C-alpha cells in the first residue's frame, strides 16, 4: 500500500504526518509516532466516528476549505483549526509567507458591528496594546487594540458606520524608534 505524506499546522506548530491504509484501519504517524485509527463515516465530509487505539471520538468538520486544506474541527466539544498541506504545497506556502510585510498591522473587525469612535488619529504614535477604536455589537462596546507599536497610518471607517466581520478598520505602521525600544 502507498504512504501519503502531509504537513499539518495546528496551534502554530507543524507536524509531519503520514497516512497508510492497512486492512480496515489507517496507520497514521504524527512526527514519527504511530496510531492505528478506525474510521466510520456518519456523513461524508461532515461527521466521523474515530476509534484511535480503541478510544472513541465523534468528530465534525465544521468549516472546510478543501482547496487550501483549512478546517475547523469539533472534537470533545472543542473547536480547533487545522491546516493540511501535501509536501509540495507546504513549500509554496513558505515562499509566500516570506513576502508578507511584517512592519504593518491591519486592525480588522472581529465581528460585525457599529463603529462607536476611533481612539487615535492618523499620524498619532501608539504603543502595543493601545486602543485604536471602539466597536459596538450586541449592545456591548468593545475596545480594539493594536498588536504592534507604531504610527496610525489610516482610519478606514467613520463613526457610526456599520461594518462587516473582517472589514479593515485601522492601519498601523511600525515605528522604527518604537520597534527599537521594544
Amino acid at each position, binding site marked *: 500500500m502507498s504512504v*501519503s505524506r502531509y504537513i499539518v499546522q495546528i496551534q502554530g506548530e507543524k507536524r509531519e504526518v503520514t497516512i497508510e491504509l492497512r486492512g480496515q484501519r489507517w496507520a497514521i504517524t504524527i512526527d514519527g509516532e504511530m496510531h492505528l485509527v478506525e474510521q466510520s463515516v456518519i456523513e461524508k465530509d461532515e461527521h466521523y466516528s474515530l476509534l484511535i487505539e480503541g478510544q472513541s471520538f465523534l*468528530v465534525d468538520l465544521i468549516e472546510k476549505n*478543501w482547496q487550501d486544506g483549512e478546517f475547523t474541527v469539533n472534537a470533545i466539544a472543542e473547536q480547533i483549526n487545522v491546516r*493540511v498541506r501535501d509536501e509540495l504545497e507546504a513549500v509554496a506556502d513558505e515562499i509566500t509567507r516570506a513576502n508578507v510585510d511584517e512592519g504593518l498591522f491591519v486592525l480588522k473587525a472581529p465581528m*460585525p458591528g457599529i463603529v462607536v469612535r476611533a481612539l487615535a488619529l492618523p499620524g498619532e504614535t501608539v504603543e502595543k496594546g493601545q486602543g485604536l477604536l471602539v466597536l459596538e455589537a*450586541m449592545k456591548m462596546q468593545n475596545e480594539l487594540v493594536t498588536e504592534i507599536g507604531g504610527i496610525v497610518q489610516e482610519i478606514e471607517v467613520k463613526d457610526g458606520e456599520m461594518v462587516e466581520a473582517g472589514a479593515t478598520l485601522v492601519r498601523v505602521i511600525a515605528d522604527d524608534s518604537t520597534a527599537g525600544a521594544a
Partner: protein
Amino acid sequence: MAKEFKKVLVANRGEIAMRVIRTLRKLEIPTVAIYSDVDRQAPHVFFAEQAIPLGGRTSAESYLRIEKIIDACRQSGADAVHPGYGFLSENLEFAAALAKEGITFIGPPPEAIDVMGNKLKARACMVAAGISVIPGSDGAVSDPVEAKRLAAEIGYPIMLKAASGGGGKGMRVVRGDDKMDSALRATREEAGKSFADDAVFIERYVEKPRHIEIQVMADTHGNVIHLGERECSIQRRHQKVVEECPSPLVDDEMRSQMGEMAVQVARAVNYVGAGTVEFIVDADRNFFFLEMNTRLQVEHPVTELTTCTDLVKMQLEVAAGRRLKLRQEDVQHRGWAMEFRIYAEDPEAGFLPSTGKIALLREPTGPGIRHDSGIYEKYEVPIYYDPLLSKLVIYGENREDVIQRARQAFTEFVIAGVKTNIPFHQWILKQEAFCRGECDTHYIDDHFDAKQISHDARVPQVALIAATLAYHQHSRRLNLDSVQTEKEAQSRWKLIGRREAVSRRSTI
C-alpha cells in the same frame, strides 16, 4: 371574576419568548410573535401560531416601539401581552397604552413599576414600610459638604448612586473625604448624560457583597407568597452569569426572614404578579433591600425546578384575576438548581461578543438537564440584541450533584460557528471557592484569567487525525474525478476528431 385569555402576544424574542410560548402552548392559548426585520428566522417566529413583522433592525426600531406592538395586538386580536424581561417589561408607558386598549399587561400595576423604577422613590417607600435598606441618604445629594457630613455619619467607604441608574452604571465608590468633591461631580454628570436625571444619593458601600434575591408572587386578592431565594453573586461586570437556588449561604431561618421581608416589600407597593426583591448581603449575613425587579427574571428556572412550579403559568393566572393556588405553607423546596447563561462571547478574547451562523449545535440531554434555548442549528445570531443564546439549567439532589452534572453536561454541549462562554463556565466549575459556595460579586472580576481556561489535551491530536484523513480521502476522490473528467474530455476530443474527419471527407 377570572378572565380567559383568547390570544396572547409575546412582546419579546430569544429564549424568553420561547419559554413563555411553551407555557401558552401547554395551556392551549393561541400565541402571537412579533419580529424585527433581522429576526425573520428567529425561532420564536416559528414557535408561535401567528407572527407579525414590526420592521426595523435595532431594538429602538422594533421591540421598543409601543405603537407598533399595540397595532400588532389589534391586528391579531390578542387580548393580553406577555412582555418577558428587558425591552418594555418595566415600561410604564407601555403598560398604560395597553390598559387604554383594554389589553391585559401580564405584569404588575403601573404604580408598582413607577415606584420601583426610581431608586430614590423605592428607597423612600421601603423606609416608610419599615424595610431594612442600606444606611444612606434619604434623598438626592448635590452639595459636597452635605455629602461629606452624610458620609461621616454612614462611615466610609460609601457608594454614590444615580437615582435612575441601573445595570451597574452610574455608581462610584468613595473611600475618603478627599475624593468626594470630584466623585460627586463626575457621578452627577454621568447620571445626567446617561439617564437624563442627575439625582444622586449616598449608600454605605458593602465590601465583598453577595447578591441574593427572593421570588415573590402576588394575586389581585391580596395574597402574596415568596418562593425562596436565588443566589446571583457570580457576576462579570455587574452581569449575572451563574445563578442558583438555594443559596449556599442561606439557611431556613434566613430564608424565612428574607422571604417575609420580600412579601412586605411587595405589599408596600400593592404588587401583583411575579416580582423579584433583590438584597445585598454583607459578610456578616446582614441583608438590605437593593431593588425590586417588576417582571419575570432571566434566572426564574432555578426557582421553578426547586419548587416544582411554572412561574409563567402563575403569572397568567393572577393576570386573569385568579387566586393563587399555592399558599405559603405549600411551597416546598427540594434539591438544588443552577443556571448557566450561555452568551455569544469569547472568554479567551476579553469576552468580545461573537456573531455568525450556528454551524453545529449538540445539546446536552438526560437526567437533570433543562435547556431553555433561543437558537437552532443553522441559525444566524444577529448583532443587534442581547448576546444571551440560551440557558443551561441543571437540577440535582444537592449542590455537589449539580456541579458534577453541569461539568458532564458541558462535555456534551457543542455550539460551533459562534464563540460562547461555555469555556468560562467550565473554568468556574473547577474553582474551589465556587465549589465551596463562597463567591461574592467581585469574584469573577478579581479572579478570572483567560489563561486558566483548560483545553482537553487530546483535542489537537484527534482533530489533526480527522482533518488529515478527510483531506486525504477528498483528494483521492478528486483525483478519481479528474481522471474521469480527463477520459470524458478525451472522448469529446475523439468525437470532435471524428466530426473533423467527416467534415474533411465531405469537403475534400
